């Protein structure tokens, strides 16, 4: 029974996909398969998706754009979810994947059923899918380049890493340390894993801090800067230059310091609105446009002079965000 159903769905989807490439996507259905919702970044990502796609549906650009989130951030669960989405006859599936490799099988199934698969943030390696990736190494490098310009005399640097064993953590850290090697006046005197969470970062930094010499700067991965600041304050140490990660609490803290004593730093992360970029890319592909399989999203950087504007646009507890329009997506696809 299930097999017949699957066969039918595949046949129907294949027919749909094989149809002439028209400029009309108003009958097409797009699904979002998301593996995790338990932090502020993911919440903002889902909210952006909701806002942009609801309008797209109301404007008759697509027929549906439904978000689905798995509860336990597990590969098996997400694989089952994508299988359901295939059966439900979506024309495109936008994925934030729990694993770059483990979903390849089910992604291939979707492709074989004629479904467009666009992965972003957590990308999948299956060649038939599109990938909207972030150049995390460049993000790490940009932090050190900023430090090199800001404090040419150099000094001791503390590195706060993300979740151990995750690809993103390795990439950002590699970018940071490769660039640090270019500036011998900086010394990486310690690193801790803050797991992108303020509480964990605070705990880990407070633990290692007593054993460290004076710290001039803290390089981070986002979601950990505020916790680091709290740990330095609690230890009664002078506040170093802490790179922030676009979270509202981090920006708020930065603003308070800036007003108090002219504190200067920068903040960099990926905008959660990248989900909307993925949506438009999926829509463009459904529309028959030529889109390269590998795209790179620009990261969102906030500097001393753009702090106030970004803080005003970021809701309490959220993440500084940019939502993409169809035109923005076209620009990213065209390589700007």
């Amino acid at each position, binding site marked *: 029974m299930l097999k017949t159903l699957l066969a039918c769905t595949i046949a129907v989807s294949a027919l749909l996909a094989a149809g002439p490439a028209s400029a009309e996507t108003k009958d097409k259905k797009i699904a979002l398969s998301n593996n995790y919702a338990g932090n502020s970044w993911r919440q903002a990502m889902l909210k952006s998706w909701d806002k942009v796609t609801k309008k797209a549906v109301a404007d008759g650009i697509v027929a549906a754009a439904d978000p689905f989130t798995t509860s336990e951030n597990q590969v098996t669960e997400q694989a089952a979810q994508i299988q359901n989405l295939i059966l439900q006859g979506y024309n495109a599936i936008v994925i934030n994947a729990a694993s770059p490799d483990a979903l390849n099988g089910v992604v291939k199934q979707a492709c074989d059923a004629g479904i467009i698969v666009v992965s972003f943030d957590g990308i999948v390696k299956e060649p038939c899918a599109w990938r909207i990736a972030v150049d995390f190494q460049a993000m790490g490098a940009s932090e050190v380049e900023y430090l090199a310009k800001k404090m040419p005399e150099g000094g001791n640097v503390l590195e706060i890493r993300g979740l151990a064993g995750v690809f993103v953590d390795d990439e950002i850290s590699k970018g940071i340390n490769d660039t640090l090697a270019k500036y011998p006046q900086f010394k990486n005197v310690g690193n801790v894993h803050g797991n992108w969470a*303020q509480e964990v970062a605070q705990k880990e930094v407070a*633990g290692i*801090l007593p054993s460290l010499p004076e710290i001039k700067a803290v390089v981070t991965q986002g979601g950990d800067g505020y916790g680091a600041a709290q740990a330095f304050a609690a230890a009664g140490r002078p506040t170093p230059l802490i790179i922030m990660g676009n979270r509202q609490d981090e920006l708020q803290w930065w603003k308070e310091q800036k007003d108090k004593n002219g504190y200067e730093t920068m903040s960099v992360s990926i905008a959660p609105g990248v989900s909307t970029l993925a949506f438009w890319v999926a829509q463009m592909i459904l529309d028959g446009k030529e889109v390269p399989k590998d795209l790179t999203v620009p990261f969102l950087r906030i500097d001393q002079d753009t702090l106030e504007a970004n803080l005003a646009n970021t809701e309490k*507890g959220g993440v500084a965000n940019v939502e993409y329009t169809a035109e923005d997506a076209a620009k990213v696809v065209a390589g700007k």
Partner: protein
Amino acid sequence: MSRITSFLRARPWAWSFIAAAAVWLATVAYTGGQGAGEILTAALSFATFAIIVGLGQMMVISTGPGNVDLSIPATITLSGVVAMKVMDTDSSRMLIGIVAALACALAVGVFNFVLIRLLRIPPIIATLSSSFLVLSTAISYGRGIRIKPPPPLADFATARIAGIPIAAVFVLLITVLIAFALRRTFYGRSVLAVGQNERAAWLAGISVDRTRFITYVLSALLSGVCGIVLSGFSGGAALNMGEDFLLSSIAVVVIGGTSVAGGRASVPGIWGAALFMFLLVTMLNTFGASAGLRFMLTGLIIITVIVLAGGEKESR
């Protein structure tokens, strides 16, 4: 020598303090004495939270094999989020916030017991599934918004006198109360009796259900307290603030010398184990060990401590 072994044999919790002291000494030796006091202060500050939830987990585990509370992280998050949102940075609303957060925690505890007793779901599944519901509630209620704690709460959670965190003194009070309850009250004795042999306890006239009910509610309430204090300590509640406590709440109980099979609780061991866990990570961070090595050593050292503490028990 034999006096030392007999001392250790009667006090399985002593191992956790010995282990904590050993890693602290190793760290201080590595840094050449730098920051010795500050490390202890930091350890006390952060161990506080693991101790609060560890005490609740200890009571649950002591009520017999199979009893464990996996909803602790979700309850911490929910109560933290509720407390911060109700208080809304206003000092005069602190009391309402605390009451609201504890009421939510209480509800979680009651709900856990209902799942376990009335629906006869094994505790491990019941508390895990209730934690999904609780976390979802926290997500939809809080929407990931970080609201700062009112200043008095933040002061309470972060203040220290002569290097000793006030929160640690507060938790010491809770610890003494629980130790007293275990030794001197009918409820405390019932917990151990039920944990040792449910049927014998029932035949002796102890209400097994009532004992377990109070215990699950107590564990949830302590998680609620942890959520409130932790929010005050770290400048607001976050959706992933409880994540760290799933394993650590169980680890401090086991390393502290409480019997996993139930029936024997070790209150001081919770303190030793919580300090040990923090100091161990500090030591490995200070040595600059890579993440992989750090995880491996953490696992190996924890196994060693448990084997040492457990081995002594066998020879009794």
